[in-house]
């Protein structure tokens, strides 16, 4: 995308209108603007299924494009797209993963090691059960509320809260045990 492309300055809604009119350049600008964030969210939600990220990303964008005419603009496009991407990623979760117990669930969480880094946290997130990882990623990384998470993951807000508590507990255990050494 050329740096002086006038489309770059257009808001999402204008780009969407142009895309619905068949303009490829408008779609490329829209994609370039939102794909990096969506990809990282999907990548983190997938955990160790990193090799599926391209497929999920493609699925999310195609789903968004097919439903673009119904996008009414009341929400931000980035949130709308993220919801589609989150649903596409979570559809890859193993059946019953939401009830998958964490093996260290009942142990008391140790304090966070002083040497823990973001990389350690990333690797610890990968090791969480799918649903726990999804909730902690959406809440602590993406900043969604429990009500929003509940809507996106089709669960009760209370379930989201409990899952988050368990996920953080498990994360602390994993970080203390040195997830980076795994």
């Amino acid at each position, binding site marked *: 995308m050329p740096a002086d*492309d006038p489309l770059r300055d257009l808001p999402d809604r204008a780009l969407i209108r142009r895309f619905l009119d068949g303009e490829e350049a408008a779609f490329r600008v829209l994609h370039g603007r939102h794909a*990096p964030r969506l990809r*990282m969210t999907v990548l983190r939600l997938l955990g160790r299924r990193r090799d599926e990220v391209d497929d999920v990303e493609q699925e999310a964008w195609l789903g968004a*494009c*097919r439903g673009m005419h119904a996008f009414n603009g009341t929400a931000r496009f980035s949130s709308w797209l993220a919801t589609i991407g989150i649903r596409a990623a979570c559809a890859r979760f193993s059946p019953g993963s939401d009830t998958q117990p964490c093996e260290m669930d009942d142990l008391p969480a140790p304090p966070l090691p002083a040497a823990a880094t973001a990389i350690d946290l990333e690797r610890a997130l990968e090791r969480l059960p799918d649903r726990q990882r999804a909730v902690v990623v959406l809440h602590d990384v993406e*900043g969604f509320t429990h009500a929003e998470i509940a809507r996106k993951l089709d669960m009760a807000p209370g379930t989201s809260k409990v899952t988050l508590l368990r996920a953080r*507990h498990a994360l602390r255990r994993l970080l203390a045990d040195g997830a980076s050494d795994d």
Partner: protein
Amino acid sequence: MTDDPTPDDLDLRERELFAALPRTSMPDPHATERLVATLAREGFLRAHAPPARRLRRLAAAAALFTAGVAVGASAGARFASRYSLEHALARTDLTVPDRVLLLQRAGSAYVTAAHGYADATAHADSTAVEVANEVLRGAAHAVLKSNLNSTLSASLVAVLQTPRAPSPTTATKPILWY
């Protein structure tokens, strides 16, 4: 998005770790092209939607072509002006053979112009024939005065002194040609 309080909240150190996580990851360019191709296949994208870059190239080509035409027209006009009849008539450095040629060119130009005038006005203006004849007669008098050629002068005098009678060819060719 506003966060709702969770009993087991993160401490400052944990918040810093989460904040340090990257939020973006660049998509694979090949995957992007695959996506665009799929959208095109599904009819979301116009087959020949011109990207901005192609439009700029077309505009540049059009501008180049227009500039070329303008330069060519300007050069052509200068060339035509330099070799025009008016320019040649104004020159004082012509040799005798050049002047003979110029006389022939001017004569031919006059005939052509008179022909055009007659064609354009013969059916619409009844005085056109007379006007053309008067112009030609004026030219003949000018030749006589300059006395270029005694034989030609004598012939012209004979023609001009002959009483004018309706000519059968006048209706179709109203100008006296030479």
